[in-house]
């Protein structure tokens, strides 16, 4: 089934400036893989060479960080869900 993946501002240049993308997949990992297949430039921003989610990007299923879900990236997505990509940002001071 297709779920909505919310794309944050810093990554929109790699998704044709779309803020949300509908992606098919049975698990979080499969959904991310399908997203990357469609938007290849996203890969280095989301995953390490080994396919792990990078340490400065968090992936949430609804409001829960996948790192804290029992099955992590392999958590099955069975019902309507929103997947959020939330990268680390630092702005705010002098710049």
């Amino acid at each position, binding site marked *: 089934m297709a779920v909505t993946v919310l794309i*944050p*501002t*810093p990554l929109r*240049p*790699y998704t044709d400036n779309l803020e949300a993308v509908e992606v098919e997949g049975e698990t979080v990992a499969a959904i991310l893989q399908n997203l990357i297949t469609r938007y290849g*430039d996203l890969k*280095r*921003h989301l995953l390490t060479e080994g396919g792990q989610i*990078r*340490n*400065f*990007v*968090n992936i*949430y299923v609804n*409001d*829960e*960080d996948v*790192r*804290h879900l029992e099955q992590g990236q392999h958590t099955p997505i069975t019902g309507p869900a929103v997947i*959020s990509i*939330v*990268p*680390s*940002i*630092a*702005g*705010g*001071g*002098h*710049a």
Partner: protein
Amino acid sequence: MLNVDTSQVSLSREEMERFSRHLILPEVGLEGQKRLKAGKVLCIGTGGLGSPLLLYLAAAGVGRIGIVDFDVVDTSNLQRQIIHSTSGVGKPKVESAKHRLLEINPYCQVDVYNVALKANNALDLFRDYDVIVDGTDNFPTRYLVNDACVILGKPNVYGSIFRFEGQATVFNYQDGPHYRDLYPEPPPPGLVPSCAEGGVLGILPGIIGVIQATETVKILLGVGTTLSGRLLLYDALKMSFRELKLRKNPATPPVTELIDYEQFCGIPTVSETKPAAVETITVHDLKARMDAGKDFVLVDVRNPNEYDICRIPGSVLIPLPDIEQGPGIEKVRALLNGAELIVHCKSGMRSARALGILAQAGIVGKNLEGGILAWGDAYDPSVPKY
């Protein structure tokens, strides 16, 4: 609840009048206002986030406010850094901020630290304060603020912004999660553009900074439910707020000492950057080539909206993202046709990155030192320092 000693604190008649709207609020009252007056808050940075939050903390009656910043007020700050004024341009930010805060609330003690926050001064600066507020603009300082707060057991009121989006939470409060639980590591330099490169909506830090001020006041008062354990996301374009769960991560290593944060964030030291740097050319060499009618191609890798602000005559716009994603490389190749390649941006960082990518594709060129800003200084006074 934060341990604030109010036994030595009293309010004068003038202060009673000033804070009367707090005093009649049952959740604040006289005891709460005394807690605010006894409270000591240290704000790191007096930029986009620090400006609004400091104004409100002083107005609310926080008794002692410390400010850490080493920068001076620049005209381009005034679009969002509302604590500073046109008359303050060129002055140290901490002085400009102190002046404004005392104008709002002369009963506030304002301590200024006109220094860069570093691993060798952070613990000493933080030790005397109850709450630390992070209004910085870079990853090394954010990890430093976090680690110093964890070591000293201080709450860290966090806010961060990018273009139209903001994040806010409270770290390290009442045994709650901290920054390293949210993001174990920073992104490598260059992967995410800074506000100076990417721009920021001026009002955005106002919203996030005021959320930080609200959380700080709640912590001092000991009322309500803070953002500890929740990450608040704000999108100004959609005018939407979302909330995500933020938990302690059992895999986060304990923070026991401060480290080299520049190194941790992968920022090369000056000695490392110089030898690896691409070949450069000065604006004077560029002018000489122009005057001599030499055959060269000048590529501007800034964004189209920056090209609209100002440009060097004869330059061709090929934005860095275009080069990063591939198509721009072929555009450059097609332009060259044997001619010399000179690349520029605003100040020389992005053009160096572009030349690094082009070099991998077999295209060699020179980086214009100091970018269009240096060109403006030397030859074109119409170039604004945007």
